[in-house]
């Protein structure tokens, strides 16, 4: 359950911004992470609800954008996005000399909608 640690860090960041900008209600939290960052959206949502029974984030909506895993194929020189099936076989040429080039971006807080 590292989602609990992530949400705790998120709440700390939001509290710092609440002091700075003087808001006291958060409506929506926009987040992004790479597909490979091993963040589980449902676990994240559960951890968020569990840790915000009250306070400025209570009832806020979490919006998580998962950035795709991108892979380069050395056989046909094309880049493809893994849809969850075996990422190490190129869907264009079935080649298996491939390298993952993107998808490990860690969880980022992008934008807050507040009152």
């Amino acid at each position: 359950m590292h989602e609990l640690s992530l949400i705790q860090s998120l709440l700390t960041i939001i509290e710092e911004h609440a002091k700075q900008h003087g808001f006291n209600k958060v409506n929506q939290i926009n987040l992004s992470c790479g597909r490979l960052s091993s963040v589980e959206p449902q676990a994240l949502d559960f951890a968020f609800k569990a840790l915000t029974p009250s306070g400025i984030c209570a009832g806020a909506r979490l919006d998580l954008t998962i950035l795709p895993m991108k892979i380069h194929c050395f056989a046909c020189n094309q880049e493809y996005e893994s849809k969850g099936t075996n990422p190490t076989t190129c869907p264009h040429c079935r080649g298996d000399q491939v390298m993952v080039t993107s998808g490990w971006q860690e969880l980022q807080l992008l934008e807050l909608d507040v009152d």
Partner: protein
Amino acid sequence: MKINVVKNILDANNRIANDNRAFFDEKKVFVLNLMSSPGAGKTSLVEKTIMALRERFQIGVIEGDIQDSYDAERIAKLDIPVVQINTGGACHLDGNMIKETLPNFDFANLDLLITENVGNLVCPAEFKIGENAKIMILSTPEGADKPAKYPLMFAESSVLLINKIDLAPYVDFNLAKARHDAHAINPELQIFEVSCKDENGLDKWFSWLAQAIEDFQQGGGKG
């Protein structure tokens, strides 16, 4: 009202990990973050590594487990300074947990600090602790599909030890697939095939580690 933030959620942990790293650099202590699934052989590898390198380097160990101190007792029997961290449910060690253990070690008499993370193939890869290198173990009974299924840890690690290689024929472990997928995710990953039970292949791991410690200590403390 919308507020633009753009901030890494793990920034706070990364800051503490960087502080730990600066401290270890100053003390010239090489730090390993050892990760794997439960039961892959982390503690056995720590024991074998201590036995092989204790004449050349002064070694300390941090054991991370959700509960219990069984692993720390195994290490203490070898007369090596060891601290047990019980995370109390957390699935990984983080920078702050390591920071809190620091007063327990005599860093003037330490070259290598081995941190054995909580057995888990997912979360530990996300949290830096101030290590020089992340080392992971995949044991053959777990299956060769693990690099494709749990890519982050393979991507973050410098060394992959494929352990229990003596069992490979009995559990139909596809070594070529494991190596191929791991290198697709991390082309620079060093892979050693070992057996902690019969000690096959461990000498290559010991050489890699001894060289890494020496390079670090001679390089002015930069990891």
